[in-house]
């Protein structure tokens, strides 16, 4: 029963929690529980009686949860933080990834280290995914703004679409700025000058 450790993941971000859970299960840890909702969390934790607890650093209830562990009302054994407080590189890796890990006292360091490493790598993978998604979304937004700026120029100066884009690009080059910045200020200015055109 070497993988029978009870692992609890407290994360309001359900997608991220599922990604971590999947990683842990793939690695053979079957006893993984996810908590997304903080209501009644004390009772749930007492029921689960976890050996290892992960909490994302964005969770505003970390202080409450930590206090709960320290009072050991919810968890039957005392909880130490991270694998070993002298293991600075593990702590650093976890905090960098955005996760805090709590481990009940008396667990062998080697048993927990792999679990921690797994959670950290999954947290990092999730951040990478979110960043990429954010960038893709940003690009789409940028394209929309540039289209609107082109439309404004076409209307006000009677230009073709190609000419309008050329003007944006030339202005950006002359001012040593990005096309999106020029487009953004043009759209903002047009909105200010002509409130009726805002829609």
């Amino acid at each position, binding site marked *: 029963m070497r993988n029978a450790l009870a692992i609890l993941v407290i994360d309001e971000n359900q997608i991220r929690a599922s990604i971590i859970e999947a990683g842990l299960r793939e690695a053979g840890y079957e006893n993984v529980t996810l908590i997304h909702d903080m209501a009644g969390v004390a009772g749930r934790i007492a029921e689960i009686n976890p050996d290892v607890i992960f909490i994302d650093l964005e969770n*505003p209830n970390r202080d*409450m949860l*930590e206090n709960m562990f*320290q009072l050991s009302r919810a968890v039957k054994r005392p909880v130490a933080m*991270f694998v070993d407080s002298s293991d600075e590189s593990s702590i650093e890796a976890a905090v960098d990834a955005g996760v805090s890990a*709590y481990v009940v006292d008396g667990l062998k360091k080697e048993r927990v280290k792999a679990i921690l490493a797994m959670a950290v790598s999954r947290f990092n993978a999730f951040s990478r995914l979110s960043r990429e998604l954010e960038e893709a979304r940003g690009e789409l937004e940028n394209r929309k703004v540039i289209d609107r700026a082109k439309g404004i120029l076409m209307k006000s100066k009677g230009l073709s679409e190609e000419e309008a884009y050329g003007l944006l690009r030339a202005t950006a080059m002359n001012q040593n700025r990005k096309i999106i910045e020029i487009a953004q200020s043009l759209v903002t200015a047009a909105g200010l000058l002509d409130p009726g055109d805002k829609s």
Partner: protein
Amino acid sequence: MSDAPYKIAAGIIPLLDSALLVVAKEKGFAETEGVELTLIRESSWANIRDRLAVGHFQVAQMLAPMPIACNLGLTPIGSHTIAPMALGLGGNAVTVSKRLWTEMAEQGAPDGLDPRAAGAALKAVIGQRPARDGKLRFGVVHPYSGHNYELRYWLAACGVHPDRDVEILILPPPLMADALAAGTIDGYCVGEPWNTAAVISGSGRIVTVKSAIWRSSPEKVLGARSQWAEQNPDALAALLRAIYHAAEWCAVPDNRQELARFLAETAYVDRPAAWMMPSLTGEIATGSGETIEVADFFLTHDKAATFPWKSHALWFYSQMVRWGQVPHSAENAEIALQTYRPDLYRAALKPVGVALPGANSKVEGALQAATPVGSAGASLTLGPDGFFDGSLFDPDELDAYVAAQASRPGD
């Protein structure tokens, strides 16, 4: 800006007393001292502690007892942390639900903010509370916080045992007012603007304030990682000067509106500027419809508000002992004492000729009136600094204080 000699990242929590760090940055005091100051808003004190420990932050806004708790090994992780400066005095209040207020009013609680009268009414309410209703629940932000200790001090001095007669829970400041409205808790002790938040939403009533429980009492400090502070004394000194000048700026009444607008920004407290004004003016709307003028509600600069008194560190330590968080020993007391570093404060500020207290420690609660003190001809006024129950804390008589509080009624 990028060629500033010192680059410092500071963690902050969305609370009114982040003001000193916010102003040090926004009004250019940091820049003037050659500090490129980056402020990072955090969602929990645990994050502040962890990110300071791993070196993401060099310094942080911290609950005044937190660095002591770190150094005593009471926190899950924690690098050795020092407090070379305080970030103001006062600023907290105790708020209860409208329902609890109604019961307290029936027991004779008056409209003012008198801690003794409010406490007596609360004790009477608890005395009549049917067992089936369970204990009243109060929220504080952290076990090692001024909020926890002043709430407990107030309750105990009014004959309410904080562990037996009520339940004290930990909640993040921005969630307090919602928890009160939802009935999850019956009251809380928190910094501003999170009391005003409950008054504005109509869910709460402010019953007393920190400055009435203990006038001119410590609340937040600048926590610095010891290792960083030792290796970068010039950077730390520059930052302390910047914060000192920011504190002076915050204390000028004409600057209040601008300060409220800074704090209202998304990167800081992220709430309306109007919510910041009660704390900055001391005109506290309690929820009764009237506004009460509170002396020294929140001090940023006056009364040596940024001086890290060793006697403050020892008082917090005495409360950790009182509530069973740490056993009392000479070694532990010494750890607490060495956490606060007025020597570094003096070293940074003496060269610029600011008024400094003559000692590093004082008898807390001894000043009945504002008293001029200070060295080197510069003017400085301290006090009044009384506890509402009239007791004194003499840091030289720590053992006697610890022994006496263990046998006090209500404990």
